[in-house]
Structures are given as C-alpha cells and as structure tokens.
C-alpha cells in the first residue's frame, strides 16, 4: 500500500520509512510560527523551561500582525514581549511593523515555507502552507513553546480525504468559492482530525494565491492540514524565494484515503457563507436581498495581489454605495507596493474605500472595522462565528473578493455581473 503526501512528509520528518493513519509519531519541525496574541503565552511557557536558546533562531518565525500597529496599551505590551524575545534569541525572521504582513501571506512570499516541510504555527490558519506542498498545521501556544525548545513535536498521523475538483471554473469563481463549496458540503467538522488533499483539473488551473485560499480554510472544516501536491506552478513560485533546499512529495497512486469526494464545478457560482458558520453556504443566485453595512477585502484568506486585482477590476471607475463602508487590507507590504504600482490602491481610494496597512484586525474583531449591534458585514475573511467581527448581535457573511467588491457598490450582497 502506498502513502499519501501527508503520510510521506510526516514519515520523513519522523525518520521513518513508512507511517500510517493513527500512528503517534515524534517529528522534526522545519518552521515554528507565532504571532502577537499566541507567542506571548508561548514565551512565558518557554521561559519556565530553563532552556537558554530556541532550537534554531532561523526557524522560529515571529510576526506581530493581530493587534499591530498596537491598538491599545495592553496589545503594545504583548507586541513588546515578542520584540524583546526576538532580540534576545536572535530570531532572524521577526517582522516589525512596516516590514511585516499578515503571517500567512508573508511566510510564503518570503520563501520561509517550502514544499516537503513540516510547519507548526500557533495560529489555526497555519494550514495555508499546504498550498506549497508542505504539511502545515495550527497548534496552541504550549505546543509552540515545546517546539521552540526541542525542534520537534508529536503528531497523530491523520487519515486523508481526497477532494477532486473536476471541470473549468466560471468567470469570477475562484479558490474561495471552491473551498466554501466543499465546507458547505461536508460541514465544519467534516474533516475533523483529517488531512484534506485537494486535486483535480480546477486545482491545476488555480493560481498559487487561489490554492493558498483553499488550504487556508481547511481548518474551517476541522481539517488538520490542507495540502495540494506540488506541480510546476508550485516550483515556479518557490524557486524564486527559497533560501534552503526543499523536496517535492506526491501521493502514491495506490495510497489509501478515508474518502474520495469528487465535484464537478463547471456550473459552480460564486459562493456566500451565511452567519454563523462557514458551512452555511449558498450560491450567489440564492442569496436573496441581504443589505450590508461594511465590506472587508483582505485577511490571510483573500488579502493577496490576485484578490486585490479582482476587487479593483469591479471597483474601477465606480463608487462604494453611500450606505457602505469598505476597508481594503493588502496582506503584506510587498503586496501593498505592488498594488500601488498597478494603480489598484488608487482605484480603491477613488471608489471611497479605506486602505489599511497589513493587519488581521477586523477578521477576528480585534480592531479596525468592528461591527456595532445589528450590523452586517460581507468579508473575504475565513470565519463568521457569533461576534467574530464585533458585537455578538452583528453578522458576518463570507465570500470571495469579486462578490465583496460588487456588494460594496450595490449596498447588498451582489453578483459580480450586477456591476459590470
């Protein structure tokens, strides 16, 4: 019996020839990530251990991105803790405000996460890096602390669900719609404890950005990791960025899967997730009349250049509806610069959108775009739980950037075609 890509990467990092689902292994980690919310808890635990140095100052990555630029004194204290730890430990990949980005946009862009890696991050959306053919998963702060000290961690090898996306995507339909469609199908715990492997013609045709959007939301189906076997596109993307060697793994043709789920997505419309779970999906034609107060375009799910380009295409020469406020957040400084060079930022500002420095702020109801009681937002973010973006009686709808931009113009959740 062959192995899946997930099993192969985990076996290699555990020093094993073979591994199978259910096995508990201890594996070497290539990257350990933390942010300004999760790393302070990890640092406190790490310092209790009495270990002098982290296992490798080049492989611990610290990105203050949730509450920075600091939103208040307490968050300033948390960011300071990160900064001081980074200096003391000589952390090479610490990214200060002005140089930083939303972690899951930043790490792939900087070539810090590579095919064949095992990566753990104290952030649930660490699964994003499966898009480059790595095993990447979210953990808590204590796990982060232990891995910073030892350079390894334990895993239960997951079973894999293979998703095959057949067919050609319709215009304005992208990675976000594919993943929302899958989550709508299997539910928010449909892949609990499992690996989600994404394959098929539609994935082959998807950009690296679209693939990252998909792997990013594996956690919203309960997945341990989302993974896309690397191809020429992956190599093209990473070879310009990588500063160390990497390995390309593929699933064996006779690998065992817990389930294989096939979709024909040829007729798939843009998908919207209704409150208060990402599984409450509807095709755009079945959304009905949903008036909104705010639109957010950004986050680790859809804050990449392709997303901004798509939104700008629909907003160019138009104005945001008078009853709506729109916040656009480029995922990294590099994305911001590129968006400026291409005139996208000007398009957003001309349309009366606010454009922000990279931050996770509004996605998790941290700051920058908090909703009042009874307000509704349409966001390109990844979660729409109760109170996610502010007041517990506010509502968050999720979509890709095209629907978000169209809705910004219309004032209600709208299909891209409505503003063309």
């Amino acid at each position, binding site marked *: 019996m062959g192995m899946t890509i997930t099993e192969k990467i985990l076996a290699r990092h555990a020093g094993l020839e073979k591994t199978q689902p259910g096995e*508990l292994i201890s594996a070497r980690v290539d990257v350990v990530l933390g942010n300004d*919310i*999760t790393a*302070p*808890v990890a640092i*406190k*635990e790490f310092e*209790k*251990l*009495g*270990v002098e140095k982290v296992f490798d100052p080049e492989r611990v990555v610290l990105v203050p991105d*949730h*509450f920075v630029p600091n*939103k*208040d004194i*307490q*968050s300033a204290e*948390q960011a300071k803790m990160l900064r001081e730890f980074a200096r003391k430990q000589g952390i090479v990949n610490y990214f200060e405000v002005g140089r930083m980005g939303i972690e899951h946009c930043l790490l792939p862009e900087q070539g810090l996460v590579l095919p064949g890696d095992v990566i753990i*991050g*104290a*952030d*649930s959306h*660490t699964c994003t890096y499966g898009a480059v053919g790595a095993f990447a998963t*979210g*953990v*808590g*702060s*204590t*796990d982060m*602390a*232990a891995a910073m*000290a*030892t350079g390894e961690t*334990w895993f*239960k090898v997951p079973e894999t669900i293979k998703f095959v996306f057949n067919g050609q995507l319709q215009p304005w339909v992208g990675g976000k719609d594919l993943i929302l469609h899958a989550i709508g199908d299997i539910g*928010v*715990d449909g892949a*609990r*404890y499992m690996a989600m492997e994404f394959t098929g013609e539609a994935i082959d045709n998807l950009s690296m950005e679209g693939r990252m959007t998909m792997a990013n939301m594996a*956690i919203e189906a*309960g997945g*341990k990791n989302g993974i896309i076997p690397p191809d020429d596109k992956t190599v093209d993307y990473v070879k310009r960025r990588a500063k160390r060697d990497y390995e390309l793994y593929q699933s064996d043709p006779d690998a065992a899967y817990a389930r294989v789920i096939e979709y024909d997505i040829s007729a798939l419309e843009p998908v919207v997730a209704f409150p208060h*779970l990402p599984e409450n999906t509807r095709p755009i034609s079945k959304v009905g009349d949903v008036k909104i107060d705010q639109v957010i375009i950004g986050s680790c799910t859809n804050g990449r250049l392709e997303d901004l380009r798509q939104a700008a295409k629909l907003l160019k020469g138009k104005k945001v509806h008078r009853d709506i406020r729109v916040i656009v957040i480029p995922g990294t400084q590099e994305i911001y610069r590129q968006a400026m060079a291409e005139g996208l930022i000007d398009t957003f500002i001309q349309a009366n959108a606010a454009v922000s420095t990279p931050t996770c702020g509004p996605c*998790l*109801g*941290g700051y920058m775009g*908090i909703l009042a009681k009874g307000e509704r937002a349409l966001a390109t973010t990844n*979660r729409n*739980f*109760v*109170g*996610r973006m*502010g007041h*517990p009686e506010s509502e968050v709808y999720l979509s890709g950037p095209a629907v978000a931009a169209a809705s910004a113009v219309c004032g209600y959740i709208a299909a891209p075609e409505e503003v063309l």
Partner: protein
Amino acid sequence: MQFVGNVWKFGNDVDTDAIIPARYLNTSDPEDLAKHCMEDADPEFAKKAQDGDVIVAGKNFGCGSSREHAPIAIKAAKVSCIIAPSFARIFYRNAINIGLPIFECDEAARDIGEGDRVEIDASSGRIKNLTSGKTYQAVPFPEFMQELIDQGGLMKYVEKKVKQNG
C-alpha cells in the same frame, strides 16, 4: 482523580470566539480571561458558574482559532472538565497540554441536562449522572496522551526530556 459538579449545557460547534472573544485577547492573564469565559454563548456564564462545574456540549467543541486562551479561560473559570461527543482538534490538543480534562462521550453529552449533577472519574473516563443515576463510559485517552496527563501536561513532559538530553 474525581470531579463532582453541576452541569452547564451548550450546543454543537461552540467555537473559540464564543469561548473567549478576540476583543479580550490583548491579555493572556488567566484571571482576566476567566471573567469573559463563554461570554458570546452565555453572557452570564462567568458570573453564574461555581467552582468545579462541568460543561456538557454538542459536537466539535472548541472549533476555530488555535488560541490557547480558550481552554485557559475555562480552566481559570474553575470549570473542572468538559464532556462532548467530539472536540475540535487544536482545542483537544491545547486542553491536554494545559491539563484541562476533556471527555468524549456521545451518549453522556446527549443525555445529561442543564443543572444535573455529575461525577466523573478522570482516569477511567466513567461518568455518572447523580441526578438520573445513569452511567456512561467516555472514550479512553491513547496511552501517550495518558502519559502526558499523568506527567502534568506537555511542558512537564518536555522539561523531563530536555533534562534527559542534557
């Protein structure tokens, strides 16, 4: 170890934002977090819950964020343990790592009602509803996990390992 406490009941897919909303994550102080425990699921929970109380919830408890602040808040609110048919993966791992006992038991989670008094034997996973008299058996922890729990959580385990390696 045995726990005896009164039950607070919650539904399916209780997410980490409901357990501890992000608006309070500008601190990691357990006492501060405890004040807002379960706030977006039940705003009065932190005030009402008594030491040793038990949370009984539906499937996929703790889905969403990796924030360890969620199990930390529950533990600091002096909740003794959680019973649910299933837990989200990261929450499960975090709870074990910080020493918050959790028990997977479909039947118990379904049967036990709000306000019931329950007794849980942590090592065997036996759950007794003292109100109804019914008993249940939770899924036992894998051996490795039991070892982690016995040693007092992940950091204690790592500490020992680090010392062994000199």
